[in-house]
């Protein structure tokens, strides 16, 4: 019997696992996919919002500002790329100037520090590529950009290093009452736990309905993006928003922590797992983005992707007990990435109130190191190559990722089994050639390290095979 089972290991689940792993508890993390943080956590704007956007009094507002603070602390401790670059919300008309004022007021109520309203001249001075039609902007210095999947991964890894048990490839099929807790049937066995946290993202309503009457519904909503090459990465130096409307925060333009430029998203209702891109959506994103930053060169696009928001029909986060000792952390839409650690912190408190005994571990590991070769000084580069020559062999030429870093990723606490798993950890294939050059080499290193055949190496999730067999070994019927 586990003390706590967490269903879903996206940003919310991994934050819960991280916070709970500080205590002497037996923790199970149940994840459907073959790796963590493979849903919404890996396909979003990668922004840690300042917190002026949510309406005061909502759960979104409650957790956003606190989450912003905690995220930066955690990223520092766990060596995750996170840069506090500040955000601008642009106003293009007098009417939108009023919206800025409203956002400013909300920000004050939500506790957002140091906001300013900028006039057109100030915008031009700070952001010369922003449209001349922008007449004012709300500046929030605490907004940040982050590597979202590494953020989730770092927390999940730390939880695992502190003893939490991660069960991958384990889709929850049913949940029933058990003696002193809950019994969760998964595709790969059953798990009994005294307390359960439902952090299943776009599937939280389905999990909820396994233990309680329907009380909310997830209305999945897709957002599509462009990711541009690094030569476009300095087009802007802040996160550039437009005024929010009924569809959300609108299309943003921002640098990424890797030095690329991210542009998106739109907002259209979709299926839970539908991460396809569509021409109409991409056209919309492009047209909207150039209103903010007319000079974006979309010819430098290196990837499009779609993320699905776990919007609840209540319009807010859904946080509360669905049944005895069964806690829903549902509807974690934007600003969910920013709010996650604050939600997790509060979830721990809520479980404690229900009798979960919290005894702090004496030997809790709260550090993590990620060697990023390209960021080292010349002397440091020589030092690490002398220690391990594999750091002297660049495998991914676009991002300058060495074989040493790939081997590190393959030896990390949550071992990747796919090219994309290595990509999320080491950064291979993230660049302009999108793995065209390094893919075959990374595949070979994975096969060698994991002692599997080439054909067993996946692109991403189960079923995403890359190779169909050896040459001259038969083909299509």
């Amino acid at each position, binding site marked *: 019997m586990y003390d706590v089972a967490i269903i879903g290991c996206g940003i919310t689940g991994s934050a819960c696992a991280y916070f709970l792993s500080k205590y002497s508890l037996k923790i199970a993390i149940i994840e459907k996919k073959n790796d963590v943080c493979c849903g919404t956590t890996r396909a979003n704007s990668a922004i840690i919002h300042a917190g002026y956007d949510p309406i005061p009094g909502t759960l979104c507002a409650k957790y956003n500002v606190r989450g912003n603070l905690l995220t930066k602390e955690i990223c520092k401790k766990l060596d995750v790329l996170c840069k506090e670059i500040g955000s601008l919300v642009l106003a293009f008309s007098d009417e939108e100037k009023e919206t800025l004022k409203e956002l400013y007021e909300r920000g004050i109520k939500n506790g957002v520090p140091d906001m300013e309203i900028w006039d057109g001249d100030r915008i031009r001075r700070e952001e010369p590529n922003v449209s001349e039609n922008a007449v004012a902007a709300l500046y929030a210095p605490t907004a940040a950009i982050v590597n979202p999947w590494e953020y989730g991964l770092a927390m999940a890894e730390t939880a695992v290093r502190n003893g939490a048990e991660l069960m991958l490839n384990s889709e929850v099929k049913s949940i029933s009452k058990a003696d002193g807790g809950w019994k969760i049937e998964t595709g790969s066995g059953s798990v009994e736990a005294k307390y359960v946290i439902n952090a299943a993202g776009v599937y939280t309503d389905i999990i909820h309905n396994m233990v309680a009457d329907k009380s909310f519904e997830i209305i999945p909503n897709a957002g599509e993006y462009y990711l541009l090459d690094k*030569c476009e990465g300095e087009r802007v130096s802040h996160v550039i928003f437009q005024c929010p409307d009924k569809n959300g925060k609108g299309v943003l333009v921002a640098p990424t922590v890797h030095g690329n430029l991210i542009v998106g998203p739109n907002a259209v209702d979709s299926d839970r797992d539908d991460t396809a891109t569509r021409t109409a959506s991409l056209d919309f994103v492009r047209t909207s983005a150039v209103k903010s930053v007319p000079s974006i060169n979309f010819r430098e696009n290196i990837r499009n992707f779609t993320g699905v928001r776990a919007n609840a029909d209540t319009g807010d986060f859904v946080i509360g007990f669905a049944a005895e000792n069964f806690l829903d952390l549902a509807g974690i839409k934007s600003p969910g990435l920013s709010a996650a650690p604050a939600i997790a912190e509060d979830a721990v408190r809520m479980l404690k109130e229900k009798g979960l005994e919290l005894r702090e571990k004496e030997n809790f590991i709260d550090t993590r190191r990620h060697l990023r070769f390209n960021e080292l000084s010349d002397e440091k580069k020589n030092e690490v190559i002398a220690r391990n020559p594999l750091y*002297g062999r660049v495998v991914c030429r676009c991002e300058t990722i060495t074989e040493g870093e790939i081997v590190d990723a393959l030896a990390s606490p949550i071992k990747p089994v796919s090219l994309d798993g290595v990509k999320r950890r080491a950064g291979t294939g993230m660049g302009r050639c999108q793995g065209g050059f390094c893919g075959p080499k990374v595949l070979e290193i994975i096969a060698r390290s994991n002692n599997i055949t080439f054909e067993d190496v996946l692109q991403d999730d189960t079923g*995403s095979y890359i190779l169909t067999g050896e040459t001259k070994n038969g083909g299509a019927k």
Partner: protein
Amino acid sequence: MMYDLIVVGGGPAGLAAALAAKEKGLDSILIIERDSQLGGILNQCIHNGFGLHYFKEELTGPEYAGRFIKMLEGTGIKAMCDTMVLAVTQDKKIHCINPTDGYQVLEAKSIVLAMGCRERTRGAISIPGTRPAGVLTAGAAQRFVNIEGHMVGKRVVILGSGDIGLIMARRMTLEGAKVLACVELMPYSGGLQRNIVQCLNDFDIPLYLSHTITEIRGKNRVEGVTIAKVGPDRKPIEGTEIDFDCDTVLLSVGLIPENELTRNAGIDIDIRTNGVVVWENMETSVPGIFASGNVVHVHDLVDYVTGESQKAGRAAAEYVKQGMRSREHAISVNEGKDVGFIVPLKIHREAMDAEIFFRVRRIFETSAIVVKDGDKVLAHLKRAHMAPGEMERVKLSRSLLDAIEGDEITVYAEEVEE
């Protein structure tokens, strides 16, 4: 130590440049190659058709590269493989790393940039749909099949009719896969005519001109694609969709010179093609730094890469021994109507001759290449056929160069009467 010449890249361009510089008397020459062996992308091009112009015989890619690698023997030219260049600077320092020597900064009197090119990817053209495994560039597939000995799929649709895509259509077929279609956005192929015949027609693989992929389907692995006809605006026409059940999509949608090192060094690059801007002797905007091969412009035949790179190597030797050519009274070369990226863009007045390479932007039947100095026709060269897939070449002799009165010439392509 100070090298006379460092060549960045050990593919056909780098090899030819180094050998030519040696012939012209440079002593200490170093080739830096990121792969574990010399030869570059030729090593995975196991088909034949290389060397018809240069060696007057038909060789495979590895054979073509092998001849140059063999020529290195006894020359004293050093090759450092498994080594990645991280930066090149205008004062001719090269920052590089490898597993044995670690991080080092090397100095040279001259540099030839010969990094080649890379393939455009799915992202560059924003193909809509899901993002499953089984969507690869043709070159990545070629590496898997020819170097690693593994198949990348069984039922294949190829987008783009560039040469690598055409070659892979044949290669996949010979390995037992079924190539269902080759789909080309433009009304003509971007590849060599001989490849259309030998790689598609000979295997009954249909070529859909003026078509594109409008959707990729499949959750984890490609399950199918939809293609549609495109109008003159290259946008899909509704109602013309054709579905294919396939597990693989290979992309052959263009090549881009790989110039990140060049750009970071502050050397001029053509923003439209990403190619290095060069003079007739392959000198870049920085004196003493030269560039040749696909890093300058994407070639159709490796034989021309060799010729161009020998020019770069010889020019590097001249620079080291005699100093730089004067850039005063330079002649600019302009693109006329229907002419794409031209190499070179500038000619030194003292040049003994100049070879001009370009591609036309559309198909030409009976036609001519015309080089003009103002209104004066310098050269008028008849052509039976010109296509964007094939490079055109015009040689200007010393006497023609002497006849140029202005400071610019323009190259046109035009139809002529039989």
